[in-house]
């Protein structure tokens, strides 16, 4: 069946350092792999996604890497700031008009920043 999971439940990083959050997936049929950020008391917020035919995509201070050979996804945050403290979720989605469009989430990694 489909599953998206995370290697580590918590990650503590020094402010200014780079953060790397990892995720494993099992559904090779997914078209998109996505990262969301959730701050306390709020709904998840889209960060960045990557299509299955890509292996790297960069955004503002974030980079997502996709390794389809080992079914691994990672989110790299450059120069981590206190505002990056949150829970990060990976998710996957298949494209299509109907039932394939569901978005399935992994269990989340809590990122905490040390001053």
């Amino acid at each position, binding site marked *: 069946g489909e599953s998206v999971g995370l290697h580590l439940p918590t990650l503590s990083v020094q402010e200014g350092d780079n953060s790397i959050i990892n995720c494993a997936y099992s559904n090779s049929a997914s078209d998109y792999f996505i990262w969301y950020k959730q701050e306390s008391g709020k*709904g*998840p917020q889209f960060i960045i996604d990557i299509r299955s035919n890509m292996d790297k995509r960069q955004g503002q201070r974030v980079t997502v890497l996709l390794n389809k050979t080992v079914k691994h996804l990672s989110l790299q945050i450059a120069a981590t700031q206190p505002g990056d403290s949150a829970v990060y979720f990976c998710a996957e989605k298949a494209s299509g008009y109907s039932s394939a469009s569901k*978005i*399935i989430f992994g*269990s989340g990694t809590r990122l905490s920043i040390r001053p």
Partner: protein
Amino acid sequence: DAGITQSPRHKVTETGTPVTLRCHQTENHRYMYWYRQDPGHGLRLIHYSYGVKDTDKGEVSDGYSVSRSKTEDFLLTLESATSSQTSVYFCAISFGQGGSEAFFGQGTRLTVV
């Protein structure tokens, strides 16, 4: 919150009673989703909709039903609430084609006593 309103934001209900949560959007997005979030878990998909009157089950659909009679509203009903359905419920919307970005509401905290 990208034009998404969940109501109510908080609710306490008794075991065995029916409960309906509402998600309203002003974005005219085709796809709508209901998730639940529990401590130690990520977001688990309950049901989703890919158009008016088009819905499908997610990962944890038992005990829940949904309806979408118009584009802007997606209702989640707990037929007979149980304590295991105490959770935070999130609605999300997505344009769908050509992308994966979904926008989430603020959540509804439901307590079943």
